[in-house]
């Protein structure tokens, strides 16, 4: 490591001139070696990063070799033309193929092709330029391959060209995030991907069906919409350890089908627009299927899963959650046994830590219905087997106390560590 002169020794409170973080006279920033300045630039957005070229001679030619690029339309706060120009000139100086990480955020509605913004075209052309490179000779990585480890795209239109590129020319890609993208592609496949996030994406045409990656550890599918009501969304990810789903009536109309996931340790399932979901039988069965697929996890979080299990659905629906140690139920109904949450509690013999959050608005008449149902429940259904329960945390809001106490009494001999928080 080269010694970089000028380091102030011994003075903890260096004679600072300015308030806040004082520099004490030297320019320690410019004194950092190139690669550390690139590290700092990797945390900056593109326009400000480019502007460093005018700070001093030291900085003039630094930025084009930056390993991480973050192009964000919001940083420019400008109209289409200015953003278009900016990205055009920037991408001529920095080759996406050589980046370690690339983030491109385009405002929703900006990229409609044609005369209006066409950010997707930049990516397509960068991909096509790489595809034109000669194919790999045996054993060598193709010169058209991208070194990218992290790619985050927001607001773009993506198609088969993109999918093929990810599949075959991104051998180091570990982290892929697509946010509010309009996708017309068949599958996302990769042999290196570890983390995949699909947030608010729409899948057009009856094509998209599969996520496939033997290395995938974390998967997030958050809202979005899918045209294809017939085929299920297939996830083939043997190594998956963590799953986060936000399910709406629109994103898994054909259901979702998970392959074997022996390493799945943690799952979170949030429901939005629950009323609509709960009413449609085929959507309900999709929900139960999701629960079955994650039944071997050690840690489960359910949010908004205020869903009742109808007569006849029980036996086919609820496996044992035999590995479940930690359960968080948020807005999932008060554990009526006819609710999903009650079923899960009954089938989790090794549960150690339970967190219940239930903050119901007083405007909700459903709550009142629930109260009377509680009183009529057959006592035989009260048997909950959580003998190892070590810690219970309940976050509730004012007038639910009565129901909560009733609910608690069902477990009472098993609740050594109780922590109740009233949140107003």
């Amino acid at each position: 490591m080269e010694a970089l002169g000028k380091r102030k020794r011994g003075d903890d409170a260096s004679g600072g001139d300015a308030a806040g973080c004082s520099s004490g006279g030297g320019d320690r920033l410019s004194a950092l070696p190139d690669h550390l300045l690139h590290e700092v630039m990797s945390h900056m957005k593109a326009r400000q990063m480019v502007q460093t070229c005018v700070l001093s001679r030291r900085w003039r030619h630094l930025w084009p070799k930056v390993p991480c690029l973050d192009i964000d339309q919001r940083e420019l706060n400008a109209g289409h033309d200015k953003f278009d120009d900016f990205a055009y000139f920037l991408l001529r100086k920095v080759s996406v193929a050589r980046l370690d990480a690339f983030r491109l955020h385009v405002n929703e509605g900006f990229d409609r092709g044609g005369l209006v913004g066409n950010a997707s075209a930049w990516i397509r052309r960068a991909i096509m330029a790489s595809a034109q490179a000669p194919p790999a000779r045996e054993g060598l990585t193709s010169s058209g391959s991208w070194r990218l480890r992290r790619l985050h795209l927001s607001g773009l239109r993506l198609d088969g060209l993109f999918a093929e590129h990810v599949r075959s020319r991104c051998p180091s890609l570990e982290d892929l995030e697509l946010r509010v993208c309009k996708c017309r592609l068949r599958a996302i496949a990769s042999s290196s991907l570890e983390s995949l996030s699909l947030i608010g994406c729409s899948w057009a045409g009856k094509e998209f069906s599969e996520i496939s990656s033997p290395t995938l550890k974390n998967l997030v599918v958050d809202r979005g919409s899918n045209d294809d009501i017939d085929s299920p969304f297939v996830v083939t990810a043997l190594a998956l350890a963590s799953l986060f789903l936000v399910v709406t009536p629109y994103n898994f109309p054909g259901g979702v089908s998970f392959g074997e996931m022996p390493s799945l340790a943690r799952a979170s399932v949030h429901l939005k627009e629950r009323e609509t979901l709960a009413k449609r039988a085929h959507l309900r069965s999709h929900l139960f299927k999701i629960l079955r697929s994650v039944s071997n996890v050690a840690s489960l979080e359910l949010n908004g899963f205020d869903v009742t299990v109808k007569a006849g659905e029980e036996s086919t629906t609820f496996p044992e959650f035999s590995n479940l140690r930690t359960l968080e139920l948020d807005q999932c109904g008060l554990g009526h046994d006819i609710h999903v949450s009650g079923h899960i509690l009954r089938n989790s013999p090794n549960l150690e830590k339970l967190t219940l959050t239930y903050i119901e608005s007083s405007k909700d008449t459903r709550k009142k219905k629930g109260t009377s149902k509680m009183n009529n429940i057959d006592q035989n259904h009260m048997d909950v087997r959580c003998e190892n329960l070590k810690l219970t945390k309940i976050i509730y809001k004012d007038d639910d106390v009565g129901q909560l106490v009733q609910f608690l009494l069902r477990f009472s001999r098993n609740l050594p560590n109780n922590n109740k928080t009233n949140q107003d």
Partner: protein
Amino acid sequence: MASAGSGDEKAATVTLISSDNEHFEVPEAVATLSQTIRHMIEDGCTDGGVPLPNVTGRILAKVLEYCNKHAAASDKDELEKFDKAFVDIDDQATLFDLVMAANYLDIRGMLDLTCQTIADMIKGKSVEEIRETFNIKNDFTPEEEAEIRRENQWAFDD
């Protein structure tokens, strides 16, 4: 707290020696947050201690504060709070010393944290404000500076 190794024997430690000859005995589980030290332990060259000529005792103490916390805690919120307080430093010299130490010791998390902090100090500032904050001397002639701005007009406001 750093957990002891399994079994009854005391957890393995390694001694780090700062440039000003302060000795720090550190559990291996904590020290190996530094890839540099991890490689040395794996190569078996840590007997008698590891000299770190580029890091003073004062900075090494801070680095170990970071490593201790990150080796032990697993709660994300807790770590975030710690990190925020860790880089809430009044003098730039310490911040830059930490960047250099994180780089030399190859502690990825700390390097990201400190570089992010510097980037945050730059964010939103004009070129002149950045120069002022960090004492960067503008060694361009006015003509040179104008030329650079013209060449990169697409990145500067009109």
